[in-house]
């Protein structure tokens, strides 16, 4: 037995030198940023000229009588919320089984894993605005197209976030459930779902927040909701009304986010 005694001297390793590489990377990034800025004609001074634009005067005063009239703003705003609710529900419901299929930990087999991952990669690669345009073309202008577009968008976001949570879940209860002789679905349901359920709800709320903001934007391309009002008033150059609508939207989004954040903090 040739075991060295405790405390025997072995040579100390030299301190790893990362400094040079770090500087090289930082330098390259800086150089490319400057190059990119010049290429697109980025000019800081243009920020200041924006403020002298006479358009700003048109934003004020906010015509509250018009803004607070039900038919002008509140009804479309409610429609926006409804789009957000329904699409969150559809997207998150579909995401639950899909996310389990997409995680190597819980996927029933390799084929399911690869197919579901590929399909979702394609779905996510298409931007939400493009989905909205596509669906407006397919089913016509209005909240219906917006709901579908946002459902697809919710599904994409939710599946990405949630399947990564599943990836990181404790595999040991799964082994226990498997050892008890359960079928695949109940094994996943009893062995993993309780562990990741709080995150699922939290992500669902987060997707709801995203959807409210996104449904404002989607209205711009004819997918219903408050975005349609913003777009039409902008076309009439009624920026005072646009600002009023935006203030209202800000208040609603802010309140919902605060509530959602409070709930999420309690969940996880």
């Amino acid at each position: 037995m040739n075991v060295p005694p405790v405390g025997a001297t072995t040579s100390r390793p030299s301190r790893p030198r990362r400094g040079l590489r770090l500087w090289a990377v930082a330098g390259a990034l800086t150089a490319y940023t400057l190059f990119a800025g010049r290429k697109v004609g980025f000019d800081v001074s243009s920020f200041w000229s924006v403020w002298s634009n006479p358009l700003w005067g048109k934003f004020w005063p906010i015509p509250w009588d018009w803004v607070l009239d039900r038919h002008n703003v509140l009804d479309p705003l409610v429609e926006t919320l409804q789009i957000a609710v329904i699409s969150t529900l559809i997207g998150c419901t579909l995401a639950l089984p899909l996310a389990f299929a997409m995680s190597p930990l819980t996927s029933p087999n390799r084929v399911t894993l690869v197919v579901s991952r590929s399909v979702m990669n394609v779905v996510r690669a298409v931007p939400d605005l493009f989905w909205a345009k596509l669906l407006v073309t397919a089913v016509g202008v209005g909240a219906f197209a917006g709901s579908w577009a946002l459902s697809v968008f919710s599904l994409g976001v939710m599946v990405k976030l949630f399947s990564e949570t599943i990836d990181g879940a404790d595999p040991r209860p799964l082994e226990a459930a498997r050892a008890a002789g359960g079928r695949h679905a109940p094994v996943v349901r009893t062995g993993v779902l309780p562990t990741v359920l709080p995150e699922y709800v939290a992500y669902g709320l987060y997707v709801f927040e995203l959807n409210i903001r996104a449904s404002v934007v989607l209205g711009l391309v004819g997918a219903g909701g408050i975005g349609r009002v913003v777009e039409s008033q902008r076309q009439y150059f009624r920026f005072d009304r646009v600002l009023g609508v935006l203030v209202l939207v800000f208040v609603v989004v802010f309140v919902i986010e605060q509530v959602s954040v409070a709930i999420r903090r309690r969940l996880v």
Partner: protein
Amino acid sequence: MSSERQLKPSGSPSLSADRGTEADDHDTTDARAVIRFDDVSVTYRGGVQALRNVDLRVDDGEFVVVVGLSGAGKSTLLRALNGLVPATSGSITIDGTEVVGAGAAELRVIRSQIGMIFQTFNLVHRTSVLNNVLMGRLSAVPAWRSTLGLWPSAEREAALQALERVGIVEKAYVRASNLSGGQQQRVGIARALAQEPAVMLADEPVAALDPVTSRQVMGDLLRINREMGITTLVNLHFLDLAREFGRRLVGLRDGEVVFDGDISDVTDDTFQEIYGRAITDDDLLTVDAEPAG
């Protein structure tokens, strides 16, 4: 302390080498053998050979302690038995049913008859103790019911009875994460009991517990073995615990069975042979002034 150990007649102890005669010894009791390993080898992807030509017979109702260094193949031995780790070659049967090469449906039936207890308890922390124990009833209810969480009241009753057996039924509706280590392992035992298994496998069940709790949990396992006649295999690496609770001892070294015999025939030399080195205090759960045994 050692009087009990003489109770069980068993194959003559033999240190490694002559496996042929050992198998012959057991052939006389083969009718009662619930578990049979015949020339079983397990090679993991990457080439590590965890079990080498293992032959083993375990009779109905036996309480077998498996010892060996970490990496000797103890965990693999248990996991090959319920198919969690597929055997590369050889034959493993439980009550006459072949495990090696069994299809998914057959494997589920086999696993439903084998309860398993884990070193790290493997409970779902974010749900109730009762829900954890109900996992032991997965094979008894249709998949849609357990997936939706619609457990029949008979199954809940079975789970509660399993909790009563390990004396922890008052925690049924407590979140599993709120239990102490010893309580969590009892829930693990209850989960295995809920299967109403013929065989119980315990993979280092007390490695994560303190000495006092370790003895309680080992006592639970032995009591269940006695009262319910469940054939039990326990992996241990503490030698004093193995002596205290074991009836029959199986020693593994480098994936081979190097000892198989009655605990009363085990000496310190036996352990040294199994471990391939001198026994140290680290191999004992409790270190007294006097040497153990």
